[in-house]
């Protein structure tokens, strides 16, 4: 089966996120009120051939641990779709 995996890698809480801040300011300047706490990270989408959703998820987690997220600065989360 081919599963579609959506991964989200964001700067760890507490770490400075200048890009998120810049966007927050830009939103305010555009008149969007009530928007805050903006964090910007990477969205990674990929297809994984695996026997089950669990296997696809396990594989994706390993990809995150080894390559897709930097353990020093980033957290990740993922969703597997059939």
């Amino acid at each position: 089966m081919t599963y579609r995996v959506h991964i989200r890698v964001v700067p760890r809480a507490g770490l400075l996120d200048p890009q998120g801040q810049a966007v927050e300011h830009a939103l305010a300047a555009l008149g969007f009120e009530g928007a805050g706490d903006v964090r910007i990270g990477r969205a990674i989408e990929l297809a994984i051939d695996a026997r089950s959703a669990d296997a696809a998820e396990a594989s994706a987690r390993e990809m995150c641990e080894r390559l897709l997220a930097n353990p020093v600065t980033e957290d990740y989360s993922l969703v597997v779709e059939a």
Partner: protein
Amino acid sequence: MTAAAPVTRASSFPGERPVTLDVVREHNLTASEFDRIVAMLGRTPTLTELGVFSALWSEHCSYKHSKPVLKRFPTTGPQVVQGPGENAGVLRLPNGWAVAFKIESHNHPSAVEPYQGAATGVGGILRDVFTMGARPVAVLNSLRFGPLSEPRNRYLFAGVVRGVGDYGNCIGVPTLGGEVGFAEGYSGNPLVNAMCVGILRESDLATARAHGVGNVLLNVGAKTGRDGIHGASFASEELSEKSEARRPQVQVGDPFTEKLLLEASLELITSKLIVAIQDMGAAGLTSSSAEMAARGGVGVEIDTGLVPTREAGMTPYEILLSESQERMLVVAEPHQVAAIQAVCRKWELDATPIGHVTDDGLFRVKHHGLTVAEIPGQPLVDDCPVYTPNAREGAAAIARRKARPRRAARVDADEALEALLDTPSIASKRWVYEQYDSTVQASTVLGPGGDAGVLRVATEPFALAVSVDCNNRLVGLDPYEGGKATVAEAARNVACTGAEPLGITDCLNFGNPEKPEVFFQFREACRGISDACVAFGTPVTGGNVSFYNESPTGAVDPTPTVGMVGLLRRAEDRVPSHFRAVGDRIVIVGSSEGAMGGSAYWAELCDFIGGAAPRVDLEHETRLQQFLVAAAAARLLRSAHDCSEGGLAVALAEAAIGGPYADRGFGAVADLRTYAPALSAIEALYGEDQGRVVLSVAPAALPGLRAMLTRHGLQGYLAGEVRAPGGELEIVLPEGVHRWPVDRLRAVYDDAIPRRMRGISTDRPEA
């Protein structure tokens, strides 16, 4: 015209639309151009063939409105190794070295997507240079935008600068200089011109001439996608709301792949594994294969079914016209294919045979064996109709030269200097060039921030100086004098560093040439460029024409950008543009009549663009250049700075403010009471007479300098001296003394662009 029997044979690709007059019009071809195609083939073209014609007969590829004018450029000289006609021009340097260089526009793509448009513009010009067998050693960029008061212009500016930077930085080619201008006329149609300079051993020169029947055509580099289909014809029409909708899918640059392609190409060329090479630029596979064949007088046959594609189901039409980036077409003898593929594999690239050279002179395209296009090759490339549009100067343009400002400046003579230094077109461009890696390759002798960039060549004693310039305001006012002034300024910038001007490349950005007043500007500007190039002995080695730079509000200012390359015989003789030592004497060379026509003062402070453009005395300019080169070689100069926008006051201020990383500027005094006794303060300070430079000279070198000036038939005016850092710029005029704290000038000059760009997202459009 009716044809007796088909000259060539081709079948429609299954599913292709039939060719109707509507379809012809959609392809930006006229009815008479279509007739010519039918006559050439002896039948109606297939849609694929029509696509091929529309690309090669687009303005961008065919130069159909500019050819006769361009033919008049001087293109020869003892230093010319390769003139116009190849991917880049090449000039001879000492000790077996040569320099390849070329400039190109990417205006339309940048108007739609500034980041990718600019990035792929840099990518394209780099490929033009390394396909000559030259290693790129410098990038320059010439940019024009509407005023920064408009959010859209700020977004375009930010995106273009980031795009230029990201591409060059990643490849590892220093961006050594450029220019940026802002004027109303560019709102809606920014100009993005990129120039690349490369170095090669003359013996390694490669060409884009296919020959050798049976030789193999290889597709090297990135896979082909559906990007930028019809980019060449898109670049050949005016921007309108409609073009927004029918814009080709944006081309995305991949500088990493380009870096691999650069290394692989140079390895293929220097190891003599290939016969010819050309990059797939505008009109992609079509123009590269047809042009290489036509240059070599041979035919080619390619099978688009063999071209590696990024997406399934691409038609031959799409594959032929795709402008996917980072691809090369290589011609090689069959027995070298394996060796070529090994080199490419080392650089993690694919090299795929897709066709061969034939002896029938035809441009033939198959798709998995089915012939979908077959066109006589030479006529395809050469027989596009050539037009000589009417040229007539507009009445408004004539009137503008006779006009005077209707109102006084909004500030006084003293405040005017700060106001001019605060003008984005004049202000420090640090905000721009600090986003460009200017020191990679460890060869930068003088980086951005001065009159020209200077880089050393390998371990040789000599260096190259490079500059791009265009005073679009003068060209708009008086295209002939403006054309001359543009070459003169580029040459002067190069000569100020001590380098001898060698040759130019040009990027001619104009509006719709079918408008008589636009074609007049074009023709006259080119005449001015030609005359200046003849006078300076700096041939035109190539360039690019970009017409149809129009937005709904009209044509852009005529902007014929000139890229100049000069030779500095000893790198360590390089002359910076800023004052360097207290007590040095300030000398002005060149006289002033207080030329206010087309000046920044009138434009920025009186909202008036007009008056008579200053005349450029080519004979004086030549002597001035020769003097600068000789004086640098004799080590007489501590600094030399060209007077351009903003006149003498701005030039003195810039020299005093110091280089971008000077700890502090110098004070300076210049007494102009006998330099220009008859002029008003405004004329003396802000007049933009051509042919002038501001020098600083150690007191002990003054006698030598005087002798050198005399030898070149020039007069120098000893105006004053450099004073302690932290002081004032003091200019003494008959009517009084003007003083400005240099720290204050420097703060204004440095912050003019940053303060306008604060908080601008470089990522996405602002609303």
